[in-house]
């Protein structure tokens, strides 16, 4: 198993360009409890369309993550106070959306990209909650750093999926990827 993980990371570092989706280590398992707080300088709210637009040094303080960006657009479905979609964007002045995810050990995984989209839905009693980062996303975790075409974090499971990953190990490689990497080459 350890050898498989090592082979996989070598392949990605060497430039695995085939479009494939694989799983990276989970920043955490499950969610921490607590409220999410959005700080900003301004907010515009369209009550008819149920859209909030936050601008000016936007900062999200969440038990699982901290996010900074130039603009956030949040939409809420009718009859609910919970946003079903939040789009975090950069600007010419603030070139990246910056996210710091906390893992199970309380360590920070630093993610940047041009765009981050949070989506929330409850279907059949099951909560689906994801954060997708695109636009030259980078991740710097405790055990690895790298880039991908897309990083998708499942908040319900704590797993992060990377599309076209190009990761480099920084430490403890074997324990990072081996158990969860179903797409590892043999």
């Amino acid at each position: 198993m350890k050898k498989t993980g090592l082979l996989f990371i070598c392949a990605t570092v060497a430039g695995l360009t085939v479009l494939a989706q694989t799983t990276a280590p989970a920043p955490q398992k499950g969610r921490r409890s607590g409220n999410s707080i959005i700080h900003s300088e301004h907010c515009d709210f369209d009550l008819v369309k149920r859209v909030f637009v936050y601008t000016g040094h936007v900062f999200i303080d969440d038990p699982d993550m901290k996010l900074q960006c130039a603009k956030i657009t949040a939409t809420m479905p009718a009859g609910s106070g919970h946003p079903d979609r939040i789009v975090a964007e950069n600007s010419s002045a603030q070139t990246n959306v910056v996210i710091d995810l906390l893992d199970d050990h309380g360590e920070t995984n630093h993610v940047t990209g041009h765009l981050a989209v949070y989506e929330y839905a409850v279907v059949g009693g099951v909560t689906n909650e994801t954060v997708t980062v695109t636009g030259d996303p980078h991740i710097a975790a405790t055990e690895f750093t790298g880039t991908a075409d897309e990083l998708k974090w499942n908040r319900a499971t704590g797993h992060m999926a990377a599309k076209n990953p190009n990761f480099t190990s920084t430490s403890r490689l074997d324990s990072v990827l081996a158990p969860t990497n179903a797409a590892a080459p043999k």
Partner: protein
Amino acid sequence: MGTIYQTIRRLTTGALPPGLLALAAGVGHAQFAQSPGPSHNFSMVEYFDAPFDQQIMTRMTSAEARPVAGSAGVLDIRQFKLESFSTNGRTEMVITAPQCLFSTVDNTANSAGPIRVESGDGQLSLAGDGFFWRQNEKYLSISNRVVTVISSNAPTLLNAQTQPTKKKP
């Protein structure tokens, strides 16, 4: 969208100032007479269009409304509260502010002071300083220091207010 201010109900005794009387009569663009007297505890209600025309869409209430001398059609509102409802009568949003100026000319409200917004299910609350409200478009802009709290818990805060609203009398 329903017609704005189709119904204005006086909730207490005491004469309405001429400006408010004009509003009550559906003459929102009327010039205000220079009335010194405030109106206490009044509400302005807007209904949905058909087929939900028996349901309240928005309801604005205040503890006191006083015409502003020298500003035609402008009211100095105290304890401003605006509630919006869905077509099934559930409370969607509640906007409150200690004070604001409301223009009956273009149906806008503004204030440099604090404002608070809460969703009907209590999962979202928002506070900030300084706002501009356009009643016709149902559009709210908050100018400074906006803090929004999205609750991770089951809704509790405004459950008591989410009962279906009364229909037209």
